């Protein structure tokens, strides 16, 4: 198991060091600094073995977090734990920076004592931790016996992510469907690879211990229900931009630990008691029938040895009533570019010599429109035999629909002990599609 945990600043100075196992000596702290942080070349692996000691590290801005062990630990678990630790720290004091860590070192030691025992990760849900570890010192002196046992039963309980007795005057929940659409297209417009990776993020402000059930247009569920099946649509979700697809095929999905996985496995229903506040309910991936919001048509012509003519057309491919935002097209230029002249119909375009690219920005663009840019690139003559590799043209954008076609059908809330019903809960659903790696070869 994890033998020790160290946090360093960018210079390699130790900010936090906590040793859990006897086989890890103080010199391990230095070994990592010398061999990894101060190493000349770029880090070639997140796992480093120095003198039979293994170091796992992750970086957050310029802070290094390292876990050390001498045993054959579960490597995936160690990394998951390091990420979790970052989450917990962020939830307590915001950004992970040298200053924040120093300002909260007592708190961090306290957390480390709680979430890792003899190197074994323990309950690390912030919701639970915050009930007894606070920045104002530890609660615990003034608590009654009931409160104490409530804390311990929550920390060790089945619903470790939520505490009892939460009350809101207004029961409200927000669902964000956030997708990133990835594309690699050939110059001729053939899709080489495309996939959507999506996340459903939920912000819940609900009283008590509500039981929730989430439904979406998952092909397997819809097919099972058949056409005449009950359709309890939430009604707010008809924002999709593409054709009115009935259902989508999900390649794979993973859930927050609050979701009952065995129930999903057997009935494919997503039921859970949500944590309070914001969390990620699920992640999913689709590869079939993706709506590609933009199509890029490149045309590159070499005129002699010292000139290139580039013309790029972009076409928006969604409902005309919707608006895409923050559109950016990045057209790479050869290293020996000496001058560029650009003409674009819409937005602004600039040649950025330091980035070897023409960057074309458009603030907004409605669906089913097209726009183009043409550029003349002058080249310095070189005797470099190596041909220019022609990196792909990449795009960034944001659209108000889910490119996968996913739709939220319902999110039902039941709380039997308190007197509010599903109808009293105010629900909001929002869809945002962003570009992931969206490239067209030219």
């Amino acid at each position, binding site marked *: 198991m994890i033998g020790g945990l160290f946090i360093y600043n960018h210079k390699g100075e130790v900010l936090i060091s906590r040793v859990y196992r006897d086989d890890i000596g103080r010199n391990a702290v230095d070994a990592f600094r010398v061999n990894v942080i101060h190493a000349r070349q770029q880090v070639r692996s997140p796992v480093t073995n120095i003198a039979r000691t293994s170091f796992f590290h992750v970086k957050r801005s310029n802070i290094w977090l390292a876990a050390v062990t001498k045993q054959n630990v579960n490597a*995936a*678990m160690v990394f998951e734990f390091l990420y979790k630790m970052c989450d917990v720290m962020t939830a307590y004091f915001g950004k992970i920076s040298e200053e924040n860590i120093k300002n909260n*070192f007592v708190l961090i030691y306290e957390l480390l004592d709680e979430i890792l025992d003899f190197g074994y990760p323990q*309950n690390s849900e912030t919701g639970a931790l915050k009930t007894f570890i606070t920045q104002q010192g530890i609660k615990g002196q003034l608590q009654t016996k009931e409160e*104490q046992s409530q804390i311990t039963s929550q920390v060790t309980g089945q619903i470790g992510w939520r505490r009892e007795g939460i009350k809101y005057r207004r029961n409200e929940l927000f669902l964000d469907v956030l997708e990133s659409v990835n594309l690699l297209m050939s110059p001729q417009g053939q899709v080489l690879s495309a996939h959507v990776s999506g996340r459903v993020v939920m912000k819940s402000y609900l009283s008590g211990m509500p039981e929730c059930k989430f439904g979406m247009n998952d092909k397997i569920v819809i097919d099972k229900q058949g056409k005449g099946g009950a359709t309890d649509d939430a009604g707010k979700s008809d924002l999709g931009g593409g054709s009115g697809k009935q259902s989508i095929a999900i390649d*794979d999905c993973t859930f927050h*630990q609050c979701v009952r*996985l065995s129930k999903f*496995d057997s009935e494919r229903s997503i039921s859970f008691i949500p944590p309070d506040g914001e969390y990620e309910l699920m992640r999913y*991936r689709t590869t079939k029938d993706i709506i590609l919001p933009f199509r890029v048509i490149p045309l590159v012509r070499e005129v002699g040895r010292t000139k290139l003519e580039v013309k790029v057309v972009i076409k928006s491919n969604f409902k005309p009533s919707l608006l895409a935002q923050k559109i950016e097209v990045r057209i790479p230029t050869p290293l020996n570019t000496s001058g560029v002249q650009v003409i674009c119909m819409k937005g602004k375009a600039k040649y950025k010599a330091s980035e070897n690219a023409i960057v074309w920005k458009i603030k907004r663009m409605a669906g089913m429109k097209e726009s183009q840019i043409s550029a003349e690139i002058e080249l310095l003559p070189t005797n470099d035999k190596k041909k220019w590799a022609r990196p792909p043209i990449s795009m960034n954008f944001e659209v108000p629909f889910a490119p996968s076609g996913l739709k939220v059908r319902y999110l039902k809330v039941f709380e039997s002990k308190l007197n509010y019903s599903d109808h009293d809960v105010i629900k909001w659903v929002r869809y945002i599609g962003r570009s992931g790696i969206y490239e067209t070869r030219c």
Partner: protein
Amino acid sequence: MQEWANQLCENRQFGSKMTDSKYFTTTKKGEIFELKAELNSDKKEKKKEAVKKVIASMTVGKDVSALFPDVVNCMQTDNLELKKLVYLYLMNYAKSQPDMAIMAVNTFVKDCEDPNPLIRALAVRTMGCIRVDKITEYLCEPLRKCLKDEDPYVRKTAAVCVAKLHDINAQLVEDQGFLDTLKDLISDSNPMVVANAVAALSEIAESHPNSNLLDLNPQTINKLLTALNECTEWGQIFILDCLANYTPRDDRESQSICERVTPRLSHANSAVVLSAVKVLMKFMEMLPKDLDYYGTLLKKLAPPLVTLLSAEPELQYVALRNINLIVQRRPEIMKHEMKVFFVKYNDPIYVKLEKLDIMIRLASQANIAQVLAELKEYATEVDVDFVRKAVRAIGRCAIKVEQSAERCVSTLLDLIQTKVNYVVQEAIVVIKDIFRKYPNKYESVIATLCENLDSLDEPEARAAMIWIVGEYAERIDNADELLESFLEGFHDESTQVQLQLLTAIVKLFLKKPTETQELVQQVLSLATQDSDNPDLRDRGYIYWRLLSTDPVAAKEVVLAEKPLISEETDLIEPTLLEELICHIGTLASVYHKPPSAFVEGSRGVQHKRLPGSAGSGESVDSPETTSTAGVSDAPPAVIPSQGDLLGDLLNLDLTPTTAGPPPPAPSSGMQLGGMDLLGGGLDSLLGGDLGGTPAIGAGFGAAPAALPASFSAPVSGGLDDLFDLGGGVGMPMGAYSPPKSVWLPAMKAKGLEISGTFARRAGVIQMEMTLTNKAMSVMTDFAIQFNRNSFGLSPAGPLQVLTPLSPNQSIEVALPLNTSGPVMKMDPLNNLQVAVKNNIDVFYFSCQYPISMLFVEDGKMERQIFLATWKDIPNDNESQFQIKDCHLSSDAASNKLQGSNIFTIAKRTVDGQDMLYQSMKLTNGIWVLAELRIQAGNPNYTISLKCRAAEVSQCVFQSYEAVLKN
């Protein structure tokens, strides 16, 4: 460190209550004194502030142990925050101040009774971290109570505490019966208690490989599976990792466990997913392949594995290393997922390299076009390692998918045209392999390759190019010129290139004998007379001999048709792969090494295996496990095993041993190979005397004598050389072996007398015995058995006494031993209890083996590691001994010790005193470090030994004495 502390001084003014950074500012001299005063202050706030400062200093590595009594005094407080800080301090310094740590015991014991469960748990958690014997004694009672506490939070903490205590004092845990209580916790009503109990038990069980601690049976498994649905993500990992150690009784049980584990594949925590994959991969072995469920399960595995690739890069890396194993074991799982392994522009380099590896493994006729297009893109990237690997991958595709070979070759030629040095070299190396795979197909490209001869500066590329020139000498007009140009700097080349050059020129000679006689003579004399490298010399003499006796035979041998190379390379050896599959998700799967290769001591050294396949009811060794891999039935080696030796001797060593002395060849095989090769021609010369190395040497030595006059090499030189060689090989410095002593007197054993000794020969521990029959009747049916012993010594085979032992007859027996037997600590450590049986009775005796038998050949530690380890081992573990009356110089001593695998790493001379730093490694992986001090003229040596397992020191010292004095 002071720097940032100082710089923070400035922040002091706005050091509100919330900022703790100000505590890092204590750097002035006399600070300790000031802190002392503050710690003893009456004001609570001031005390707390002072303790915070102490902790801050401790973090940055300053020694604040002097404040121990003052800090401990703050322990008795109602303030939980202050208490926690004091505990933190205690955990750090208690070990260095054991006597004072006792002061804390009372408070701990009191806290364990506190009405607040948080405080009870805190006390028991901290107490377990204080590694002071006297404190652990007091820990037992509170721990016993806490294990049965009414509050689950306390119980889950106590469960882990048992593991802590076991780490400090295993015996105590057993004596106090904590293990049983821990086992009971598996049935606890609280899932988190169950999870921690499982984690603690698994860890304890690891250090007792043969105990039946984790008594996994269908009932407990059922409990674990129930808890799995309810506990935290971490608890799920502990439980799944534990489940993976279970072997179901039959395929039905296996299936039902799989069914209950599969939902975990949708967990957001990647570690849960990977551990579930491990359980499924392992239990799947037991399912019959025709079962519907088997196919369903296979289909279910791919999506979660793909999803892992959208995790953070570090986890992607762990996932990719594991997918690499899974793909080798069950290629069908990922076969349609090629695209997800395409490299993204901003993937970190470690992710890129791993993806590339998997792409090659998944390449098939169906997807080759796409793969090639990708690889071509990668070959123009920036990172040198990545580009090289991409080029190599193109070559591998050509070999794997015949239809693509032509396209691959033309892609490679395009790349060679870029003239980027490392790309060209890498391309040439892979083109050589393509030639091997498809002979006489792509030779048209040779001309292009030859153009780049000058730019090759890496041995592997040079060797590959030379091989190509030699192999196709008849089609390259200026082959002789090309090879001659390499010959000029023969001695500066690496062994790899030298060997290749020798072979290539011999080939050339056999193809174009008329023009190249001079060249071949030159290379033969360079290889045989001017070289110190035995590999090169041997190969030189073989060719020489071959050419001189029978050129026709030489042609048949040297220009023989080469065996085809296999499609898959770099496959992990099947048994290792099986073991690694059992370790999915862990460090072993990341390193692709068994845990024993990187874990010290006994922990995790037991080898795990996959269960046998279903239905067959066969033993674990069922052939299914090795061949179902479905990868390819051919052995992964480039060269098929049959004809291995021949190939190696001639020219097929595509990956020859790197420079440096070759390992002392397992001589018999080597000699026989040589014999076969040289055939009858040598018989007369050897006069039928085939035994013993010197004779072989003579055989070789005689070869030049029979050379035709045209080979006017100085014969005697060659001869001398060979005798040198023979001598060198014939008398290796063996490990010290004590003379035989009588172990079992005839009186006690109804006439059987056994005397014996132990020896280590060529890495094998042997028990050498003389059995004498002093009785009146014939003895037969000998057998031997060992009791459990400290290092797990056990006979590697039966006792070989083939003929009955008649009265008054003696027989010499050598019994090879291995160290995989059951382990039990003996007193003395090197004691061995033996039972010998014959047709008359069973007899028992015990003997002691010199521990030096257990020193393995790779016991030489690197200097840096030695230094680090020396410092790392606590001084308590150091022991000093005197070796009296020894009259060796330090060098002689060092040589002598080396024979017994005690390696000198460094030597230092201070004031006429030589200090030798030495290391040795025991068969169970324990390292022993030594410092041997030898004063010139003083027959008494001093030796200091440091080892994590201090108890071996005494035995090691005895071995030193024995080795040095004999």
